[in-house]
Every structure is written in C-alpha cells, then in structure tokens.
C-alpha cells in the first residue's frame, strides 16, 4: 500500500485546533523538524503535545511554544527551554510531567491495545497522586494509563513507499512507540526509497503503523550540546 504524500503540507492535512499530537525525539535528536515548521506555519492552536522534551527556545517544539500554539505539554524533562518555564510558572501552559520510562511505555501501550499497566516508577512521589496502588512481589506499583494521539508525527532515517521505517543511532528513541499510538501517523524521512529496497530484516517500524510518509526537504539536525575530545 502506497503511503507516500507529496510534501509536508499534504502530510499534515486534517490537524485541527485542540487536537492531541505525539512528536518523536529526545532533546533535538530525532525530532520531526519539517513537520514542526509546518505546524508553526499552520498556526494550529490549543494543542496537547506529547513529547519527551519541549525543544529549546528557538528550535523544535520551542518554536510552537513561542507561537503560543500549545495548551498542554506531556513530557518527562523540559529543562532547556526558558519560554517553556515562563509559560508554565505563569500558568499559561498546562504541564504533565511523567517519568520517562512510563511515558515510553504509555505510548507503547496505547499502540498495543493495552489500556493500562502497573509500574514501580513514581510510587511514593507526587506522580502517584490519585493513581491506584497495588503490591506485586512485595513491592508497590502504580497504575499508569495508555496514551494515544490524533496525529503521531515521527522522524526516521530511511523509509519506503509502504511506510516501513529505519531509524539511525539514538534518533530512534520515542519514535517507534509514538508511530504505533497515532490514529494517523505521519513519518518524515531523510531518504525515501521504493518498496523492496529496504531489507525486511532491518525494519524498525513496520509500515502498518504509518499512514503518511514524505521526504523532508530540510534537516538542520541541530546539536544541543557539542562535546568533543582533543584529536590525539
């Protein structure tokens, strides 16, 4: 089945005010930067965004925060973004902070048809407030529910016309789980090849999880913390 759409404009058709979006990536690594640029252009408002981080002030989801498009963020770590902190402390932005492993598993569960699961993470902390606690093997666990989204927007290294995806290195992160959890999943890829080109043994996200795929035109792939060692 051919999932290819012409461009980012076509890929994001149907995204409306008030929707819930999942956006892949960890920090600025593996984020769907072409789609984020288009979301800013569209000016869609009151969005709930599920993403591990919120970008930095002038890149990634930070651009959507600057444009006041986000009503609520569901993340695990938001440390690198001053505008985010300002909006959160002033009450403009609703924020749900979730342990990173629980966030990943909640997305996975959402895509896998598992409505909820028990995890030890967060027991005894404010994350556990209002959540059911059960003891398994002598250890308390809290009930966490699945997450799904109207649109999941992911970024992959290579993809084919069937929507099969391969990620590169640590840019995989949240993308595979989010791809599973979108009612409509959009994949932007650096390289788009005909079906049959990618080795089926090497596919990370099978095409069944992807509804639309396009080749991104611009990948800045910004590095957040450039750390190097001296050449020997």
């Amino acid at each position, binding site marked *: 089945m051919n999932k290819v759409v012409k461009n980012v404009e076509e890929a994001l058709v149907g995204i409306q005010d008030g929707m819930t979006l999942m956006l892949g990536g960890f920090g600025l690594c593996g984020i769907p930067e072409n789609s984020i640029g288009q979301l800013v252009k569209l000016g869609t408002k009151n969005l709930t965004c599920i993403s591990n981080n919120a970008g930095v002030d002038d890149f990634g989801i930070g651009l959507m925060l600057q444009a006041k498009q986000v009503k609520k963020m569901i993340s695990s770590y938001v440390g690198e973004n001053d505008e985010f902190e300002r909006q959160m402390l002033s009450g403009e932005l609703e924020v749900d902070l979730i342990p990173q492993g629980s966030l990943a598993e909640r997305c996975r569960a959402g895509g896998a048809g598992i409505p909820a699961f028990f995890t030890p*993470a967060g027991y005894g*902390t404010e994350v556990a407030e209002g959540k059911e606690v059960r003891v398994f093997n002598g250890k308390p666990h809290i009930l966490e529910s699945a997450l799904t989204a109207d649109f999941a927007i992911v970024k992959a290294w290579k993809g084919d016309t069937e929507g099969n995806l391969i990620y590169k*290195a*640590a840019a995989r992160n949240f993308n595979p789980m989010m791809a599973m959890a979108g009612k409509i999943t959009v994949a932007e890829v650096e390289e788009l090849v005909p079906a049959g080109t990618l080795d089926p043994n090497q596919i990370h996200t099978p095409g069944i999880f992807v509804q639309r795929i396009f080749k991104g035109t611009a990948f800045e792939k910004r590095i957040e913390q450039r750390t190097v060692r001296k050449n020997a």
Partner: protein
Amino acid sequence: MALDKNGIAQRIAQELKNGWYVNLGIGIPTLVANYIPEGIEVEFQSENGILGMGPFPFEGEEDADLINAGKQTITTVAGASFFDSATSFAMIRGQHVQLTVLGAMEVSQNGDIANWKIPGKMVKGMGGAMDLVASAENIIVAMMHSNKAGESKILKECTLPLTGVGCVKKVVTELAVLEIKDGKFHLIERAPGVSVEEIISKTEGELVVPDVVPEMHFD
C-alpha cells in the same frame, strides 16, 4: 581535604564490578566513566537508547543522531547497540542494568531521594530518574554534602518533592562514603584528611559512626 567532583567519581568507580551494565546520570556521575579500574570491564547504558556508550567524539566527528541522555555528542564502543525508549526502560525496570549512579539535591536516612523539582523555582522534570531509582538494585548517589548555603543535604527527611522512596543504599560525597541501612546513615569511609567531626557536623540525618573510620584509598 574534601574531594572535588573528579575525586567523587573516582571513588564511585571503585564500586564497579566486572561484567556490569551501568547507567550514569548527568553531572558528576558522567565522570565515573573516566576512572574505570584496570581489569574491570563494564558497559554503559544511556536511557535514550544506547548500550555500549563510548567517549566524546573527536572534533569534526560529531553526529547529531548520536547523543547521550545529557544531549551531549558521544561515540559508541565495539559491540554497542541502539534501541527505542520502551526497550531502554525495559532494561532498567527489568533490572538488567546492575548499577545506577545519579545526583541528588537531598537524600534521607531511610533512602528517599529528591532530585527533580524545587517548588515555585525550578521544574525541569524527572526525566528517567524515577524509573531508575524505583527499579535499580544498586543505586549510588553522587552529591555534595551541603548546599551552597552550607545546609546539609544528608537529612532525616527530604524537604523537596521526592523522586523515589527507600531506594538509595550508598552515598558518596566530597567528604564521605555513607551506607544507608535500618533507617540510618552509616559512615563507611572519609575523604583523605577529612575529620569524622566535620562529617558529623555536616550531616543532619542520624549517622552511625564506628570506632575506626578508614580514609578512602586512591591509587
């Protein structure tokens, strides 16, 4: 003399055991990788999806797709693997990672840890810390004994929002190695030249002090 950050890291590195998979947090814990004792082979896990993390890249070889959990550019060692975040936390929650080293703002004598939030001031989020402390069998906290105002961070009870309850077993500071058991801190070692009295005066939580407290030993 009190240790510097590298000294704390070097002391923690002495806890490494051959064959362990280890997750190092941001800050002092990251430095532990620089002091792996000779003859010890460990593999570093980064919770954003890397097993077999190596040192920083040489200049010009940075790869935007290859970063650690602190968002720093890094490399991999031979035998490394990449995986998604759910698999990464399956390794952590499933106790396949033998040691977690992380920083803290406060630790209490029953093993509670606080390191993610200062209400009204700083809200960065817990990242993977809550998953790590809830599941790891071995948790070592690397931290300074007191805050900038000189107040002890080794407490009877944490005052900040908790990251995990009853999970910390060992703390290494610039002054001492402390073990937590039976709801008390136990003084195991002191930094070279640091007196037991100084450690006692800077520890708010209940501290059990044996008759002889050996100095840390560095090669």
